[in-house]
């Protein structure tokens, strides 16, 4: 017996629409379907003009983040059975919308790159010196924060992202913190300057919504608040230990 659910989807065509509008679709659904299956059915069978991002269908690529009934979620992971007869699907909050459910990602990519998400060392290690060695305990210091799939649900949930455009944001700070806590890295001072710059980590006001919505248990709120402490310690010690020249890249 096929059930039907009503999808109320936000549509926006920049060439046709002044502002986003909603369009309803009646979708025959299977019991084990995810929200993404419903959207793909709409695109394949009902309305081919619907635009939405998706890829892996297994919650590892981070492409399919959208607002469902007002909450940011990975639509490939979110079961339709979690919802009643009607679902409202909208593009991620806090982002400019390119078209329908597709948001502008370049702002996120800029914030991402601003935290220098790569190993920074003062001197590059020669090949003859061998590989970097890292103990399991050292790995545990940052492993959780390396699990981010850049789905941007945390940016969607964070009230500060929506109100303060310069804020670096949860995922980017978590990634920068990941490198600061990596025993192979020597770039903490550089990153902490970014963390105390215009996009300051101190803008975080403890909503914790980023961690609530994260599908990978990265706990960006922990990273951001740990980064605050590290940034303060770095600032305090900079009075005692003068800054050296920039580390080599």
């Amino acid at each position, binding site marked *: 017996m096929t059930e039907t659910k009503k999808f109320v989807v936000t549509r926006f065509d920049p060439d046709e629409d002044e502002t986003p509008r909603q369009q309803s679709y009646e979708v025959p659904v299977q019991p084990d379907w995810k929200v993404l299956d419903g959207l793909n059915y709409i695109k394949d069978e009902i309305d081919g003009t619907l635009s939405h991002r998706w890829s892996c269908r297994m919650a590892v690529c981070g492409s399919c983040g959208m607002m469902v009934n007002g909450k940011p979620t990975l639509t490939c992971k979110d079961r339709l059975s979690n919802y009643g007869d009607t679902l409202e699907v909208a593009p991620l909050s806090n982002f400019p919308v390119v078209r329908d459910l597709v948001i502008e990602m370049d702002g996120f990519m800029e914030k991402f790159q601003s935290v220098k998400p790569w190993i920074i060392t003062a001197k590059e290690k020669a090949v003859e010196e061998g590989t970097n060695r890292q103990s399991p305990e050292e790995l545990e210091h940052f492993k959780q924060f390396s699990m981010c799939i850049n789905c941007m649900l945390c940016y969607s949930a964070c009230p500060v992202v929506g*109100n*303060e*455009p310069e804020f670096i944001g949860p995922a980017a700070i978590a990634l920068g913190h990941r490198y600061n806590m990596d025993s192979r890295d020597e770039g903490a001072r550089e990153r902490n300057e970014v963390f*105390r710059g215009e996009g300051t980590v101190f*803008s975080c*006001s403890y909503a914790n919504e980023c961690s609530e919505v994260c599908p990978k248990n990265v706990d960006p709120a922990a990273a951001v608040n740990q980064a605050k402490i590290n940034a303060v310690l770095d600032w305090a010690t900079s009075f005692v230990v003068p800054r050296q020249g920039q580390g080599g890249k």
Partner: protein
Amino acid sequence: MKTLLLKLEPIIWLLFGQGILIGTMLLTAWLAVVGVGIPLGLVDAQALDYERAHALGSNLVGRLVLLGLVALPLWKGAHHCRHLSLDMGGAERDAIVAPLLYGVATVGSVLAVMAVVSL
């Protein structure tokens, strides 16, 4: 102004953090006893008659406690009120709101030091 605020941010955040941590702990006792307990007769008002209150307050530890009780909540309050303003779409007015609020906390802290010193 924005650059100055960013430079001062670690100090402001530390004061805000202590405002929550220590300020909350001190305020709990103060509000429970002085704010509610004594006025409602749950605590004997004689416990804080002038002689005893002044003796407690003018002791070095007492002065520090009173200073923390007044100043630290001001920093927590100022920082959170600033975030309230930002949450209500106040990013553009932050250059005025932030110095105003932190200025209030600074003035209050200075007054607190003066009041505590003159006990």
